[in-house]
């Protein structure tokens, strides 16, 4: 509180007078609104550098189901720079109509320009439901838009449905995943929800599908682009648990940090990432970013290996929705076996390397895509052929 600071402040840029500060777009005027003209399910497509987030296609898959039930069109909104191809993709993944706003100002995600476009599309084309991924970006944008409209917004849904009154039933976990709550928004349109990545299924990509693409002019005033994204630093050690399709997790049973290298080998072979129990994290064997569970990350991979993890409830709530769980533990009474699809009661130090070997052998024989890398992340790469046994 030195005087220096004061003068500095006075010399520098003037502060805005809070009384003269105007909300960006203005909250929607109150009064009777005819909601009946609102129709269709709109999915906001999230992308970075022209690559869509898987959750966008997953939401189109779920949105298709809802739209069909409502007998309404499935709409998509693609925003960004040089993203026209994503509009085409959105049609392949189920959209009937795509609003495309392509502009250099939309190269990086920034709240103001993106909400400006979003609000324009919603107000002009009046969808009854708006869905976004419950990602960092999705939540940032959805929170802003719902306030501006204004309307109700349900966060982080894991179940979506519509009823005969065209109401969106958005269900989400509450109280550390202990309960589910269904949330409605009866009096406002659109009804908005963000939805968790990895929960819903994308439709198989269908290049023969047709749809309409409507170009939306950006119309972004200069004061909206004052904020600058200086750079994006991609995470090098991709601990992207939330989006991972294969997770190889280890616990106290690993006996020390060294054994995580063994898990990493299996994870690499499967194109997955390494997870951990809190016990392993607390012991300092691995970074907190790897922790799965109540106070870590909630995950929903296709494949989850629980290795030397007892299955304490705080761990289980974070991974029980994995599609296939494999437990390896020397204690046959470990609770983890209660939720495991495959159980191996034995010494992890013998079994894990053997599995890694078996997987590698498959790969060499052509049973896995040879690059291994990326397998765990690409839903889009899913083969269209039926389940085929590997080496025969």
């Amino acid at each position, binding site marked *: 509180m030195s005087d220096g*600071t004061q003068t*500095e402040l006075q010399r*520098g840029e003037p502060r805005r*007078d*809070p009384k003269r500060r105007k909300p960006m777009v203005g909250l929607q005027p*109150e009064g009777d609104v005819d909601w009946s003209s609102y129709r269709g399910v709109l999915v906001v497509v999230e992308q970075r550098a022209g690559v869509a987030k898987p959750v966008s296609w997953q939401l189109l898959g779920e949105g298709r189901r809802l739209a069909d039930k409502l007998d309404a069109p499935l709409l998509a909104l693609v925003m960004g720079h040089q993203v026209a191809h994503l509009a085409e993709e959105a049609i392949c993944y189920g959209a009937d109509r795509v609003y495309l706003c392509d502009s250099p100002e939309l190269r990086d995600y920034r709240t103001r320009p993106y909400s400006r476009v979003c609000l324009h599309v919603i107000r002009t084309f009046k969808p009854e439901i708006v869905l976004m991924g419950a990602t*960092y970006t999705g*939540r*940032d944008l959805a*929170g802003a838009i*719902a306030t*501006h409209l*204004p309307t*109700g*917004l349900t*966060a*982080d849904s894991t179940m979506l449905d519509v009823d005969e009154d065209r109401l969106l039933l958005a269900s989400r976990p*509450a109280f*550390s995943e*202990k309960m*589910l709550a*269904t949330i409605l*928004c009866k*009096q*406002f349109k659109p009804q908005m929800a963000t939805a968790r990545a990895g929960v819903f299924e994308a439709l198989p990509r269908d290049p023969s599908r047709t749809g309409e693409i409507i170009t939306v002019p950006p119309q972004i005033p200069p004061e909206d682009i*004052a*904020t*600058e994204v*200086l750079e*994006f*630093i991609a*995470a090098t050690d991709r601990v992207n648990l*939330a989006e991972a399709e294969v997770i190889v997790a280890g616990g106290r049973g690993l006996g020390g940090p060294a054994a995580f290298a063994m898990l990493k080998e299996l994870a690499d072979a499967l194109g997955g990432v390494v997870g951990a129990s809190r016990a392993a994290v607390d012991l300092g064997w691995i970074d907190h970013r790897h922790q799965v569970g109540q106070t870590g990350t909630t995950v929903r991979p*296709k*494949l989850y290996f629980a290795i030397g993890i007892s299955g304490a409830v705080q761990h289980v709530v974070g991974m*029980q929705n994995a*599609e296939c*769980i*494999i*437990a390896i533990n020397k204690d046959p009474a470990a609770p983890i*076996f209660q*939720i*495991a*699809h495959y*159980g191996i009661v*034995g010494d992890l130090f*013998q*079994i894990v390397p*053997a*599995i890694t070997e*078996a997987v590698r052998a498959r790969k060499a024989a052509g*049973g896995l*895509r040879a690059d291994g890398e990326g397998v765990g992340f690409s*839903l889009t790469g*899913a*083969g269209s*052929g039926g*389940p*085929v046994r*590997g080496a025969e």
Partner: protein
Amino acid sequence: MLHLVVCIKQVPDSREIRIDPKTNTLIRQGVPAIVNYYDLHGLEEALRIKDRHGARVTVVTMGPPSADKALKQCIAMGADEGVLVSDRAFAGADTLATSYVVAMTIRKAEEEWGPVDIVFCGKQTLDGDTGQVGPGVACRLDLEQLTYVEKVEHLDLERREIIVHRHLEDGVERVRAKLPVLITALAELNEPRRASLPGVLRAARYKPMVWTTNDFPDLDRSKIGLRGSPTIVAKTWVPEPRKVNTEYIPADPPEAAAEALVERLFASDIAEKLGWVQGVRA
């Protein structure tokens, strides 16, 4: 002087909430109330700026009268003033109504103590768990919104600029914005301090300001409380625990166990979903 506002919420320590297996309802009794975990990281960052540049730190919360305890904890850590917005009419608010009242409160705090430069919110609350109030407040006050911040790299008071690191799923974004801004804080931002003894003494005697609906002459009553909340909780239920028939694979010898497991995984639809079985046909 810089004016920093920190939004906090008192929440039940959700880790300690249990479900009554018979009635399927939450057992809240005896669950301690704490300051929402992430909010303390917001407060700590404000206090660090105060330590470095000098600033007034105001903490605001909307909640029941008992939430004054949460404010006192912030005072003990070093906040200058604590405001509790409390009125029956505010009860039952969802994120839209909450952000309205919190924004009105910050407006009033600006009238009392000068225009705000940075508002801090937590990433999300342990009970609401939405992360929507922060963006809502930013919109209503026309502040630049910087969500999921894990580092404040630079604060330039001369140019009124701030550079922060935003955490995203796949990396980190460095962003530069003009003050005033609203920041939502992640746990990685800092390590909240332990209050000093003089801080605890000050907090013990401190009486937070309490503002009710009467303190806001231009409050729009249709926008607060249950009435101002468009979302409705239609029902809650406890999901059925998943029943699985565990297939046990003999562990000995390990090679056979491994082979058997891999065999089964490939025979299941998981392999297809993961794209493992491509390439074979090709």
